[in-house]
């Protein structure tokens, strides 16, 4: 037990500070916001992640958001276990045809108002997989999308900035 506490105290706090990005930075990071979060929701976002056909690269970076460097929960952002609890669907990957109905049902199960983020090149434009007999291509071919984040995969930093920008109070 002493080992454990010693390691906790010697590690200290590694969490880093991040500011909300502005328009120019958003463009540079490949973030496109089509509709901002309602002011009432800013400061508290419940996200339901849906892998609709990703290679699992994006999932690794979403996991990284919860590591002590980014510590996404301090911004009021947390990942929930059910679409019923969610304000946002964070969709990764092209939408495989076998996941199409599952994604539509998840979307329907999310209460209004809701926002959809298409994360990564596959989700925002089709990426390496595109449209085929097995894939519907980008997420907006299946459900309406409010924000796209480019990158293969987008880094946790870009992801975090996207969420902060989405929550930024409308001017």
């Amino acid at each position, binding site marked *: 037990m002493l080992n454990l506490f010693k*390691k906790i105290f010697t590690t200290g706090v590694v969490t880093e500070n991040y500011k909300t990005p502005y328009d120019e930075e958003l463009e540079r990071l490949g973030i496109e916001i089509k509709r901002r979060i309602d002011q009432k929701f800013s400061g508290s976002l419940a996200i339901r992640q849906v892998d609709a056909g990703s290679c*699992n690269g994006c999932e*690794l970076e979403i996991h990284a958001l919860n*590591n002590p460097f980014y510590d996404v929960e301090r911004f009021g952002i947390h990942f929930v276990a059910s679409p019923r609890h969610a304000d946002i669907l964070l969709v990764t990957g092209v939408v495989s045809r076998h996941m199409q109905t*599952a994604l539509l049902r998840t979307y329907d199960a999310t209460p209004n108002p809701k926002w959809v983020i298409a994360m990564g090149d596959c989700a925002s434009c089709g990426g390496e997989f595109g449209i085929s007999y097995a894939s519907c291509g980008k997420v907006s071919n299946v459900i309406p999308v409010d924000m796209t984040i480019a990158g293969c995969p987008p880094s946790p930093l870009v992801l975090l900035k996207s969420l902060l920008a989405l929550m930024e109070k409308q001017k």
Partner: protein
Amino acid sequence: MNWKVNFLMRLDEEAIFVKSEPSNQFELWQIDDNHWQRFAELAAENKFRWAAGFAEQMDEQFYVHACFEKSGDYVLLRAAINVSKPEIPSQATVYAAANRSERHTHDMFGIEFLNHPDPRCWTRHKAWGKHDYPLRHEFPVQGSPAEITPPDMGYHFIQSHGVGVYEIPVGPVHAGIIEPGHFRFQAVGELILNLEERLGYIHKGTEKIAEGRTPEGLAKLAGRVSGDTCVSHAWAACMAMEQAANVEISKRAALIRGIFAERERIANHLGDIGAICNDVAFTFAFMQMMRLKELWCRTNYELFGHRFLMDKIIPSGVSVDVNEAASAFLLTEIQELRAELSQIMPALDLNSSLEDRLYTAGYLSPETAAHFGTLGFVGRASGQNFDVRRDAPYAPYDSVAVKVALEDQGDIASRFWVRYKEINASLKLIEQFIGQLNELPEGDLVADWKTPEVGSFGLGIVEGWRGEIISYVRFGENNTIARFYPRDPSQLNWEALEKAVLNNIVPDFPVCNKSFNCSYSGCDL
């Protein structure tokens, strides 16, 4: 090599005639399709491991392949069958490992595996018709999908009856940040009586869309077969292409590939050790390991431009050098990681609550592991003493001594500690590779590409972080890909998971699952 002579004699006695074509890394044996099952029986008697199965179409013929391994030697078995009567005896009757692979081949090509123990579809849900086969030449890449593909409701799961027996259907959309798949549990109280997996939800047509790509395009796609294995999958695909094109990569490029593959192994193992602890609510280890993994990924980004090293392995070489400054940084980082782990791991080893949850849970016996041809750390935690890097070494592993971590307890704790041992072994390997790298001049990263002959093929076999990856590539005209099949280790390990969770409690499923950490994407293709 002696076993091959003996085995060929044994086949001769059975009147199974083999047309043999030796190659550098494996041998191609062609037999008559009637003998397909008998061959498997003899192979099983001789303790061959069934490693991969796939098919391809060439004009009016289907070629069915099965890859076997014994003592580090690979044999690629092939039989030709006519498109008008696509039937071949099943090997799944002999090798359980061949079960889902043959069902996949059936769904994609319409090849009937006679006497197959499980005639249900596997990869196909409802995106294409029962009598359409996406990998046949006449099937267009775009297919003719409905506007909304309905869910597959007709799949017959194993039924159970009895007082107090109930079912828990889980997925495809899971409660965590995880890939989609369906699990059907039958339970009594909290005890799992049976688990059945239903995958194929993220079938993205990887094999079909690989056709017609350039070598560079295929390397990119292979890096996305399973994102967490982007280095090793790209390596396996490039190795297959290089074999086909008869291109030899430079020593420097091989060493850099080795460094990247070991870095990938370490990153994933760090994450997994943390995640296993998180699944038993031991947050200390989770946060510490995620911190170390983040630092590791940041180094990848700063030195090589990508956090997971995606697209750094390209046909005939690598796209980025590990220069002197980078080497020095990597060596310092290795020392730092060792120091960190030497503080964290004893705290985990002595923790009784962790012990309580990890020991004896999710037990996979060595027999079951062998039965399903279980690979990588899952196999090695259940006594399967196999590692491509040691048993069938390829550059740069042929220049170093690879120490293979082994445990035989078969529980979650074994899979946990095997990972830790593998991290240590990988750190040593990186140090050795960097030592060799420093003796070579910088540059010389990409060898000259030679356009491969039409029909030339290769089999790339590498040890990814999850275990042995086998990639088959055949070239068509004008330097384009005619067939690509990647066999991720998950395809075999998934079946072993069904057995490992039996008699565990349902709430322990997440940690059992995490201790295997199979890829859905690498399995569904």
